[in-house]
C-alpha cells in the first residue's frame, strides 16, 4: 500500500514536470513531434532510474562514510555525465537499434535537471534503496507521460491560428499551464488513499 501511494504520488500528484518544475528545457525543446518525444522519454526513464540507483549507493557507501557530503552536487553530476557517456557507448556497441532510437538524445540528458533533481530528491526524502529506484522510475514515467501528451497537443498547433507573439515557447508554456491545472486535480488523491488504509 505504501508503495502504491509512492507510485501514484510520483507519477501523478507530484508530477516531476508539471508540479515540481524539473526538466522544462527538453520539455519545450523536443516536444514538437510524437516520435521524438517518446524516444526522448524512454531515454530519460532509462537514465533517471539507473542514475538514481548509482547515486544512492555513492551517497550512502562513499560520501557519508568519508564525511564528504558537501561534495554531493559535484560528485552526482560527474557520475551522471559519466553514466550517460557509458550508456551511449554501450548501446552503440551492443544494441544498435535502441541506440538509433534514443542515441542523439542521450548527451542532452546530462544537463536535464530532472536527472540530477531526482537523484538529490531521493536523498533528501531519505528513501531506502528499493523506494529510491521505484520513485525514480515512476518520476521518469511521469515525465514521459507529460512529454508525450504535450507532443500530441503540439502537433495540432501547426494547423491552429496562433497569434504571432505567442508562437513557439510562449504557447507551449501556456499549454503546459493548462496541463498542470489538470494534474493539479490529483492533489489529495494520495492522502485519500493513505486514509483508506
Amino acid at each position, binding site marked *: 500500500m505504501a508503495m502504491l501511494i509512492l507510485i501514484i504520488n510520483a507519477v501523478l500528484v507530484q508530477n516531476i514536470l*508539471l*508540479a*515540481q*518544475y*524539473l*526538466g*522544462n*528545457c527538453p520539455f*519545450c525543446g523536443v516536444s514538437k513531434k510524437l516520435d521524438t518525444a517518446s524516444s526522448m522519454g524512454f531515454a530519460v526513464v532509462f537514465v533517471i532510474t539507473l542514475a538514481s540507483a548509482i547515486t544512492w549507493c555513492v551517497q550512502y557507501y562513499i560520501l557519508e562514510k568519508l564525511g564528504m557530503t*558537501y*561534495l*554531493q*552536487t*559535484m560528485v*552526482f*553530476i*560527474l557520475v551522471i*555525465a559519466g553514466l550517460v557517456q557509458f550508456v551511449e557507448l554501450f548501446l552503440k556497441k551492443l544494441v544498435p537499434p535502441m541506440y538509433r532510437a534514443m542515441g542523439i538524445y542521450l548527451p542532452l540528458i*546530462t*544537463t*536535464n*535537471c530532472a*536527472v*540530477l*533533481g531526482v537523484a*538529490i*530528491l531521493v536523498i*533528501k526524502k531519505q528513501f531506502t534503496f528499493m523506494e529510491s529506484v521505484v520513485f525514480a522510475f515512476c518520476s521518469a514515467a511521469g515525465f514521459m507521460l507529460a512529454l508525450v501528451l504535450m507532443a500530441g497537443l503540439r502537433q495540432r498547433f501547426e494547423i491552429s491560428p496562433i*497569434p*504571432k*507573439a*505567442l*508562437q513557439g*515557447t*510562449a*504557447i*507551449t*508554456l*501556456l499549454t*503546459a*499551464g*493548462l496541463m*498542470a*491545472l489538470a*494534474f*493539479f486535480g490529483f492533489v489529495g488523491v494520495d492522502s485519500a488513499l493513505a486514509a483508506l488504509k
Partner: protein
Amino acid sequence: MAAMSLRQEFVKGLWKEIPPFRLVLGLCPALAITKTVDNGIGMGAAVIFVLVCSNILISALRNLIPKEVRIACFICVVATFVIIVELTMQAFFYSLYQKLGIFIPLIVVNCIPLGRAEAFASKYGVVYSAADGLGMGIGYAMSLTVLSAVREILGYGTFAGISLFGSDFEPFTFMVEAPGAFVCLGLLLGIMNAVGRRAKA
C-alpha cells in the same frame, strides 16, 4: 572600439538576449522559485555569482582545456562555484536556503552557466567573458524579479512581504501554484515578443 564592444557584451544580456526570455535557458528555476520577490532576487544573485566566476575561470583556462573533454571540465568548474554558493547560503541565509532548496544545487544543470561557457567564455578573453557573465546574470536576475513580483502581487497581495491592498484583497492563489507559473511565464514571453517586434518594425 574595445570599450564600446565591452559595453555591448554587457548590455546584450539585459535586453537583446535576456534569459530566460530570448535565450530559452534556465526555465526550471524561473518557474519554481518565483513565488515571492525575495526568492527571485536570492536566486538571481546566486546565478550572477556562479555565472561571472565560472565565465572568468573557464575563459582563463580556455587554452589549457582539451577540446574532447571540455564539457566535463566546464561542469566541474560550474559545480565548484555552485557548492560555494550552497555552503555560503546554508551558513548565512538559512531561511532562503530552505526555500530555494533543491534548486540551488540544480544551478549546475540550469543550462545558463554551461551554455555561456560553451558559447562565449571558451572563445573570448577574460574581461569580455566577465562582462558577458555579468550582463547575462543581471538579465536573468531581472527576469526572475519581474516574474516573481507579478506572481507575488497577484497570488499573495504582497510585495517582498509587504502587504499592498489591505485586508479586503482576495488572493489569486492560482498564481503561486504550478499552473500559474507556466501561464505567467508564457504570457510574459508573449508580451516580450510583441514588444520586441514592434521595436523592430
